[in-house]
């Protein structure tokens, strides 16, 4: 489904991705881990088409098509979805209107009828319940004034409504308490299907307990330095990154987890 070959990308003259190779087949779940600043969000952003990144070498095919040649909106219409690490607030655009527009552009693209406000509401109600989303959030501006947890839920809710074929979740688990994490994981698992693939970017084993990946990759300094199965995530949780030759001074996931749980309080 997705094939990344020797991908190099830079931001403002800083080379961030330095040769990524990754193959994701339909039905698979991949976890990408790695210390802060290693390039995880950059990879996710390049795949979704964030304009600030410039691809300098390599390529990506998605369903055999040249992904990098598509606009961000066309990637989304072709079934790619990015759950943002930092969801964006959009004052003045209601969450309901936004999501219905997004859904309807996708439906048009697939030759389906657009949903009117009533049909849309009927369709999303169940998914809101699944994700514990308060209905009042739908009438508020997109992410405006949402708590951190509400923003993350909103990302997964959008994913549940848009039903992408390739979902990339960038630290959707960060900052969530364990109950919220379970809810989010449930939302993701509900989407798991033989024709879909999911890439989760995370710092923690925690999420991987709920969304069990087929493969785990460690990204460091713009390259995938290690790949394995879920055992690799367990090992990272126990030993940190040092044994992979990643220098000390980089925060171990456990240390970050500690800091985050303090911050979350």
């Amino acid at each position, binding site marked *: 489904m997705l094939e990344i070959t020797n991908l190099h990308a830079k931001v403002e003259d800083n080379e961030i991705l330095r040769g990524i190779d990754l193959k994701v087949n339909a039905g698979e779940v991949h976890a990408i881990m790695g210390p802060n600043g290693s390039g995880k969000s950059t990879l996710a952003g390049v795949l979704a088409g964030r304009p600030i990144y410039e691809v300098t070498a390599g390529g990506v095919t998605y369903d055999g098509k040249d992904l990098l040649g598509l606009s961000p*909106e066309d990637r989304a219409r072709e079934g790619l979805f990015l759950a943002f690490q930092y969801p964006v607030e959009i004052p*003045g655009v209601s969450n309901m209107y936004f999501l219905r*527009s997004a859904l309807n552009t996708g439906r048009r693209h697939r030759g389906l009828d657009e949903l009117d406000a009533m049909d849309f509401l009927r369709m999303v109600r169940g998914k809101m319940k699944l994700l514990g989303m308060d209905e009042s959030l739908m009438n508020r501006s997109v992410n405006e004034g949402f708590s951190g947890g509400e923003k993350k839920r909103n990302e997964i809710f959008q994913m549940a409504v848009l039903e992408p074929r390739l979902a990339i979740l960038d630290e959707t688990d960060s900052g969530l308490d364990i109950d919220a994490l379970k809810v989010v994981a449930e939302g993701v698992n509900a989407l798991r299907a033989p024709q879909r693939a999911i890439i989760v970017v995370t710092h923690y084993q925690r999420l991987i307990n709920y969304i069990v990946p087929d493969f785990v990759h460690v990204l460091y300094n713009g390259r995938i330095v290690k790949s394995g199965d879920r055992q690799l995530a367990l090992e990272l949780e126990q030993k940190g990154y040092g044994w992979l030759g990643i220098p000390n001074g980089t925060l171990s996931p456990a240390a970050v987890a500690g800091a985050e749980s303090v911050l979350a309080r």
Partner: protein
Amino acid sequence: MSGATTTLSAGMLDQADVYLAGFEAVEKRWAGAPGWLRELRRGAMARFTELGFPTGKLEEWKFTSVAPIARTRFHPAQPDSRPVRLPAAVPAGAPHVVFLNGRYSQAQSNLGGLPPGVRVGSLAEFLKNGRAEEHLARYAAWREEAFVALNTALAEDGAFIEISRGTVLREPIYMVFCSTPSGEPAMLHPRNLILAGEASQAAIVEVYAGDAGGNYFTNAVTELLAGETAVIEHYKLQQESQEAFHVATLQVRQQRSSNFAAHSVSLGGALVRNNVNAVLDGDGAQCTLNGLYLVGGRQHVDTHTVLDHAKPHCGSREYYKGILDGRSSAVFNGGIVVRKDAQKTDAIQSNKNLLLSEDAVINTKPQLQIWADDVRCTHGATIGQLDSEALFYLRSRGIGHDRARHLLTFAFANDVLGRMKLEELRAHLERQMFACRR
């Protein structure tokens, strides 16, 4: 008349003969008018020729050149009695007075269903019956402002609305000014007078619309008196033809504890100047100025507002937003005057601008003159572009680039529309804004 003629020949006015001829024609048509009215017109004409059209040397006109108006030979707009289609903003059933090329059209107006206690009609009719002396030209500054002077000299018609004490209007009244193109550039000088009595309540909508391609000059003046404790909402929708010139003054006088709001949406015109002035002339008066200008191409729109706090315990809220695309330009100048006696004044002003293109230019400036010491006045102005993160967020969900830009642009303007209580007008504007910029 000789007085005016002498002054005219002494003036440096461009195209003076056109205005002189126009004035003579007005004098002739109004030969039987009461003396005070003829005096007023004569005085105003003399003042206009003395002042001439404003130049960039005047602080208030620094960023707006009216040279294209000054050099054009405008002819008085010709009467047109063909039926016109009312602008879409005007609901068919709502009470409306219609002016075609500056003249009252009884056939197009619909004043049925108005409750007792309100009179709506043609100012010309009202002047002929002669009772406006107390109010006409008592509020708008024709001695200082050339365009107001010109209007005062040449205006022959416009809307007259009188709402008697305690009358509450449930339905808005629409004043509609339509211009149809004629071969040569035409000028119109609508003059409106709105008298809202003590404890009255009403919403009044002024709509200016012109057929595409119409090259004309609207020079409008509206005077509005809000009596004690009156609650008045005034709306102005300016959607002149893209070639038109539009200069307008809304001059408001507020009495004790009145509550007045002026909502303004400016969409059309090649060169537009909107003056909105309110004098808070009674204790506890509240005034809201809420406006949006949306321009593209080579349009220029200039908004000058003055909130004159003359008495204590008054509050004013001013929120203006601008959206500029193409090579358009805009000016916002927000004046707040707090007189010596106006203690406990509470004034907030904000002007925010969204530039959609690198070639658009905005000049924004607050202008505060505060003579009292116990007051709260805050002001702020911003100039920004569309948020690129928000744009990417929308696109990443499949919403196309143009539509995403449009959505964000609309979101920017949303709170201005949200302040408009008149649901039907707000809904119309929302539709129109979505239509005009895909």
